[in-house]
C-alpha cells in the first residue's frame, strides 16, 4: 500500500521525509511523476504548502518559492518577462496550472524548459532540511552544481528544495535577452533543443554575456571559459571572431540522435541561434 500525506508546513513535510528517507518522494505538480509510472511507499504532496508559493524581491535577489506553478509565475510581473515567455511555451494550460518551477529543476531533464535561462541567470537553489533540534536548516547551491546529470540532482534524502533565487542584475541590467525552444509542435512538445542568450553591451563593448544550450548534452551546457573570452570584446572584434567562437561552441555541444530529432539538427540549430544572437 502507498501512504500519502499532505503536510501543512515545510517543517512537517521535512519531518515526514526524514522519517521515510528514500522510501518517500515529494510530489509537487506531479506532471513528471504521473506519466512516468514512478511511485514509492510514501508520497508527500506539497500542494498545500503556501510557504513554498511565495515570490519576493529583496536586496537584488528575486526569490521564487519552489511550489510556484507556471501559471502563477506567468501572471507575476516580478518574474523576468523572458522567463515567463519560456514558461508559457511549456506543455499546455492543464500542465502549467499544476507544474512547478522546482519540479522542472528537480526533474533534471536536459530538455527542461526553464533550465537554459536559469543557468544563464546564475540561479541558485535553496534547499532545506531539519537540524538536530528539528529546526529548519538551509543551504544553497548554484544550479550548475545542483544538476549533476540526466535526472541526477544534489539533494540528500532528507532535503527538499525551498526556493530558486535569481540575482536581479543577471537580467535587469542586460541589453539583450533571447531564448528559443525548438519543439516539434507549438504545444505539448518536449524541446528538441533550446537556447538562452543574455548579454550587456555598453559603449560598443560586450561587458557581460551568458550562453546556455538545452537538450544537447546530459545537462544544460554553459561555458564560463568561452564566455570569459567574449567578455570585453568590442563589437567590431566580436564580429571578426564570431565564426570561430561559434565553432568552439560547436565542439562543446554533445547532441544525440533519438526518436525526437537528430544530432546534426540539434547542433546546427544551436549554432545558428548562437550566431544570430552574437550578431550585435
Amino acid at each position, binding site marked *: 500500500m502507498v501512504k500519502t500525506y499532505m503536510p501543512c508546513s515545510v517543517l512537517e513535510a521535512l519531518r515526514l521525509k526524514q522519517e521515510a528517507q528514500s522510501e518517500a518522494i515529494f510530489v509537487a505538480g506531479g506532471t513528471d511523476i504521473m*506519466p512516468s509510472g514512478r511511485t514509492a511507499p510514501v508520497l508527500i504532496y506539497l500542494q498545500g504548502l503556501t510557504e513554498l508559493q511565495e515570490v519576493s524581491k529583496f536586496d537584488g535577489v528575486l526569490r521564487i518559492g519552489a511550489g510556484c506553478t507556471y501559471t502563477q509565475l506567468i501572471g507575476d510581473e516580478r518574474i523576468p518577462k523572458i522567463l515567463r515567455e519560456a514558461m508559457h511555451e511549456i506543455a*499546455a494550460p492543464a500542465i502549467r496550472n499544476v507544474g512547478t518551477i522546482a519540479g522542472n529543476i528537480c526533474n533534471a531533464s536536459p530538455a527542461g524548459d526553464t533550465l537554459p535561462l536559469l543557468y544563464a541567470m546564475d540561479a541558485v537553489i535553496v534547499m532545506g532540511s531539519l537540524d538536530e533540534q528539528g529546526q529548519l536548516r538551509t543551504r544553497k547551491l548554484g544550479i550548475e552544481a545542483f544538476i549533476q546529470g540526466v535526472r541526477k540532482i544534489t539533494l540528500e534524502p532528507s532535503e527538499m528544495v525551498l526556493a530558486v533565487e535569481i540575482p536581479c542584475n543577471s537580467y535587469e541590467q542586460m541589453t539583450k535577452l533571447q531564448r*528559443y525552444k*525548438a519543439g*516539434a*509542435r*507549438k*504545444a*505539448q*512538445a*518536449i524541446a528538441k533543443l533550446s537556447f538562452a542568450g543574455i548579454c550587456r553591451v555598453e559603449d560598443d563593448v560586450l561587458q557581460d554575456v551568458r550562453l546556455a544550450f538545452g537538450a544537447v548534452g546530459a545537462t544544460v551546457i554553459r561555458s564560463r571559459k568561452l564566455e570569459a573570452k567574449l567578455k570585453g570584446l568590442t563589437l567590431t572584434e566580436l564580429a571578426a571572431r564570431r565564426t570561430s567562437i561559434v565553432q568552439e561552441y560547436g565542439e562543446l555541444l554533445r547532441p544525440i540522435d533519438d*526518436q*525526437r*530529432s*537528430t544530432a*546534426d*539538427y540539434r547542433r*546546427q*540549430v544551436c549554432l*545558428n*541561434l548562437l550566431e*544570430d544572437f552574437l550578431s550585435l
Partner: protein
Amino acid sequence: MEDISKAVERKDHRLKMSGRAEYTCDKRMEGMLYSAFVRSEIAHGRILDIKLPVLPEGYVAVSGHDLYDNHLPVITDEHEQPIFAIDEVCFVGEAILMLAGPDLQKVRRLCRETKVVYEELPAVLTLDEATETAAHYHYHKGDAEAAFAQAAQVVEEVFTTGYQEQAYLEVQGMVAQWDAENRKMHVFGSMQAPYHVKNAVMRVLGLDAEHVRVVQEVTGGGFGGKEDYPSLIACQAAAAAKKAGAPVRVVYDRREDMTVTTKRHPSRVRYAAALDAQHRIIALKADICLDAGAYPGLSSVVLQRSLNVAAGVYKIDNLDVDGRAVLTHTVSNGAFRGFGAPQVFFAIESLMNHLAAKVGMTPLAFRQMHMVQQDNDTVTGGKFHYYVPLPDLLAKAEEMSDYSRKYAAYSQPQQGRYRKGIGLSLFMHGCGYTGSAEKDFLRPRVILRKYANDTVEILCGSVDIGQGLKTTFSKIAAVVLDLPLERVIFHNPDTDRVPDSGPTVASRSIMIVGKLVERAAKKLKAVWESGKEQETVADYESPELIPWNLAKFNGDAYPAYSWGVNVVELEEDCLTGMTKLLGVWGVFDVGTVIDNTVMLGQAEGGILQGIGYGSMEKMESAAGKIRQTSFTDYMIPTAMDTVPNQIAFVDNYYEYGPFGAKGAGELTLLGGAPAYTAAVEQATGKSFHAIPLTPERILAAQQK
C-alpha cells in the same frame, strides 16, 4: 427540417460532452478477466520454446493451438495472418500468447516472466531490401514507349513517404463473453466493421452465424485503424473467453497500440514524365511500391487505390503504371483515411510543381493545362461520368486565398530570417470501394423499423466513430419522412439486430449506405400508417458502370469522385527550419453537404491530418521496432499549430447519393501534405522528395 445541410445538434453530442459515454475500457462484467500479451521481441525468427511461469488459479494462457482455425480472414487466402504466432514470428510485437486473469498487474507480470526462446532468422526491414511481393498490378493506356521516344524532355523523380499513425484517441479494445449454455460468443468493442469482426470470430472459433454476436461500443475514432485490426483482437479475446469460461477484456495501452497495430504504408513512388515542346505531359510512367509489413492484410486494395490516382487529377494520354506491395519483417500496414492515395498525391502534386518550374510555368497554369474534364477517360479506361468542378474549386480557392498574387510576390528574392511560401494542391477521391465489390461482395442492406409510437429506427451495420454518422443518417431519414430528428433512432449496431450494410470505410457510408437509408425511408413514407409497426428494406443497386476487371485493371474503378483544392501559406525560419502556418484554405466538392458542422469537422480535421502527415508526423522503424510509441514522441498537430481554416463547398449534386451527397471523409486529408510541401519549397527555394518534411530535412537542404 427542410434544408438537409443546415447543422443540427449531433445525436452523440450530449452523451460525449457530458463525459457519460462509456467506451470499451469502461465496460465491466461479472467475473471479467483482464489480459496482456507475450509478444515477439525480434523481427524474424523461429520459436523454439516458450517457458511459462506457473499460472495461479484463475489465470489462463491462450495460444494459436486453442483456436479452431488460427488464421485471420482478410482478403486473399495467401499470407494470412495468424491470430497467434506458433512456429515463426515475423515482426516485433507479434502476439505469441495471451494471458488472462482477474488482476491486470499480475497478468502483466506473468507476461514479463514468460520467456520465449528464438532462433533468429534474417529479417528484411525496409522496402528497398524487400524481395517478396504481396500484391502486384500493372496497367497501361495509350503507348507510353512511343511517347517517350518523341519527348522533348524527360524528367525522372523518386518520392518517399513515411508511416502515419491513426492516433485515434481511444486505443483498441474488445470484450468477449462466452455463453456456454447456448454456445454463443458475444463480442463488444471499438470497431469500424461489426460484420468483419463477426465473420472473423466465426471462422476462428468454428461457429456459425447464429452463434456469434458482435456489438459496437462507443468508438473514439478509427481513421481506418479499426477496419481490420479489431477482428484480430476480437478473435484473441473470444478464444480466451471460451477457454477461461469467463468474460475477457483486451484493452491495449498506448505504447502497445502504436507498436503493433496497422499504420499507413510507407511508400516509394518513381515517376518518369515525358513532355513535348509545348510543355505538355505526353506520357507518364509510374512505379509505386508500398511496404506492406509482415502480413498483407488490406495491402492489395490499398495498392489498387494508389494506382488509380497515379496521374492525379490530370489527363495524360499515355500511361504505364506498375505497383507492388512488398513484405518486410515489420509491423503490418493497413487502412488509413485516404487508403493508398495520400502517398501518391504527395508524389504527383510535387512532380507537377517540379515540372512547372522546369518549363517556366506557374504551378497553377501548368495544372490548368492538364486537368481532367467530364467524359474524359479515367486512367483505367473508365469514365468521369459527371461534371468535374475543378475550375470552380480553383476560382473559389483563388478568391479566398489570393493565391496567384501571393505566389508571384513570394517568388521574388526574399531576405532575412523568415521566408514565405504558398502551395497549392488538387486532388480527388473515388467514393466507395474500388471496383465492383459493393455489387459482388458487400451487397449492403438497410432496414427501417417503425414502431407503434411512430418513431423510426435505422437498422444497419454502419457505425458512428466520431465522424457524425448517427446524426447524418438520422437526418436523411427524418427529412424524407418529415419527422423531427429525435423521432429517428440509431443505436450502436448489434449484429443480432442489424443487417450487414458493409464496413464503415472507404468514404462509402453516406453515399452508399445513406442512399439505402433514403430509399428505405421513401418506401416507408409511401406505406406510412400512423400507430402501426412497419418495416421497409433497401438493398444495394449498382449504377450503370463500365465493368471493372481487376486482372486487367480496367473499367470504372469508382462510381463517382469527390474533388478538392487546398492552399497552404506559411513562413519558414531559416535558422531552425521550422514553419509557421499563415493560412489554410480548402474548397471541396462532396456533392450535397448532409450537415454543415459535421462536414466542417471532416474538412478541418482532414486537412490538419494531411498537413501533419506532410510535416511533423514522423514514425520510424529501427531494427524492426517502431521508435515513436507515445504521443510525446509521435507528434500530431494541435490547434496551436494551425490557423483558423477557411473552408468552402461547391455544390455538385450526385444523382446516386442521398440528397445528392458523395463521399467526403477521406478526400479532405489528401491535399494537406502536397500543399504544405509546395509552400515550403517556395519559401526555401529547394525541392523536396520525402515526407514528413521535418525541420531536420528542411534545414539539411538549406545548409547545403
